[in-house]
């Protein structure tokens, strides 16, 4: 039986050397909706992400897996410039959304976040607002004034989040009164209401029970019809179930990236194999 020990620094160095320097998988489209290129990020003197090159294809679910502290959440927060709101945070390199660098000096981070929505690990509906207002808030902030239009959008997005049928009779109730799974779907509806192109999800099911998790997973798969979805998860089975493409991040480096089936059936890198087989993590 193999020991359940993390890889030594020599093994890590070897695994990193063996990894393809850039993505060279079997995806037919290398351009991607989002392209992360020569990207590094960190906090103060600490480098958390190092020289990442990742093309994220449109209308796919891309899962980023890796053990705690590998930089998954930092990575996802870099994609929509949420990383920089933390004091001391820094980032270098390119994140191209449809070819435009979201980090170019003239780019408004608020606009970036509108195009690239983020759903957090813990459901965080606005607690003092009703279910309806949680979804309507973003629309109003964006200047929508006609209540009829807002109402239609609220219904549309609650529907998209598979929540409408469950809350149609309690739209006036507080968002916080819903169950955990419903709250998370409400947060997804809220994110969808401002019509993003990319939806980022940071461990969206880690606070949920299996039934609520199954609903969110079903929802994620449905959402890729309209959106590009990036999910960060430490749950490998979840990545295997819902994603088309999987990236394995370790100590801030991308060790392996490719079609999910290949990663879970026949990973190319020994380190990936050991991580997904539960030999460390």
């Amino acid at each position: 039986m193999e020991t359940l020990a993390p890889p030594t620094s020599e093994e890590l160095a070897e695994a990193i050397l063996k990894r393809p320097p850039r993505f060279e998988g079997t995806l037919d489209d290398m351009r991607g909706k989002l392209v992360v290129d020569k990207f590094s990020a960190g906090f103060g003197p600490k480098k958390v992400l190092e020289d990442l090159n990742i093309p994220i294809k449109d209308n796919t679910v891309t899962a980023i897996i890796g053990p705690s502290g590998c930089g998954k959440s930092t990575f996802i927060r870099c994609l929509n410039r949420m990383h920089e709101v933390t004091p001391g945070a820094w980032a270098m390199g390119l994140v191209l959304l449809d070819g435009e660098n979201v980090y170019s000096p003239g780019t408004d981070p608020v606009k970036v976040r509108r195009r690239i929505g983020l759903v957090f690990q813990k459901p965080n509906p606005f607690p003092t607002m009703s279910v309806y207002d949680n979804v309507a808030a973003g629309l109003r902030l964006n200047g929508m004034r006609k209540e009829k239009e807002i109402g239609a959008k609220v219904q549309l997005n609650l529907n998209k989040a598979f929540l409408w049928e469950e809350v149609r009779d309690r739209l006036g109730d507080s968002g916080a009164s819903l169950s955990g799974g419903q709250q998370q779907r409400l947060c997804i509806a809220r994110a969808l209401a401002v019509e993003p192109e990319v939806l980022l999800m940071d461990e969206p099911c880690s606070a949920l029970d299996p039934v609520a998790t199954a609903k969110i997973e079903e929802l994620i798969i449905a959402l890729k019809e309209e959106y590009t979805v990036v999910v960060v998860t430490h749950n490998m089975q979840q990545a295997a179930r819902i994603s088309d493409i999987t990236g394995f991040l370790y100590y801030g480096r991308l060790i392996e990236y490719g079609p999910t089936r290949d990663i879970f059936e026949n990973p190319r890198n020994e380190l990936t194999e050991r991580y997904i087989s539960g030999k460390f993590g």
Partner: protein
Amino acid sequence: MDLGLDRLSNAIADMASLAQQSVLRAIEAYARSEKISSQALDNAKRLSVLGEEIEELAVELLARYQPVATDLRYIKSCLEISYGFNRFGRYAYDIAQVLEMAGDLSACDKSDIERLSHHVNSMIQDSIQSFKSKDEKLARTLRERDEEVDRTYQNVTKQLFQGRSTTVGCALASTLVLRYLERIADHACHIGDSVIYITTGKKI
């Protein structure tokens, strides 16, 4: 998970040993005109039971641990390999049955069968060995060696069709046994393919 995989390996080893013995015994008995049908049937039934146990264990491991990568490929391959061993047992029984049906075959020329059975035995042995030691190189030799088996089977069958001087009983018995040996060799190749899949992830 590791304990489950060990149990799976042990069950496959038991099956491999019994399957190999069954085929060897059936061929020996055929050469000596010895009737061993009921023994061959018992072995075939035991192999079938072992195959079911392996299937149960594999499904349990899949359901409980959701294995990935090498573990996943190994479990999938164990299911295929156990089916191969199951077939070995069944073909051994079929070979034993030929003698039951044909009666006395002591006057028949069995040299082709002896030659081919020697070749097929070594393929069975190496398919099992390649699985035990995860020896991809050895597994890769099986396909080439199977071509030799196919050629011999085709040549002898053709000669029998073309009226090589022998009795109908001898011709029919030879054709059947050669056919069973040829099928056993195919299953040995499938086992080799599974070994290649386990070690490289590539499907043959």
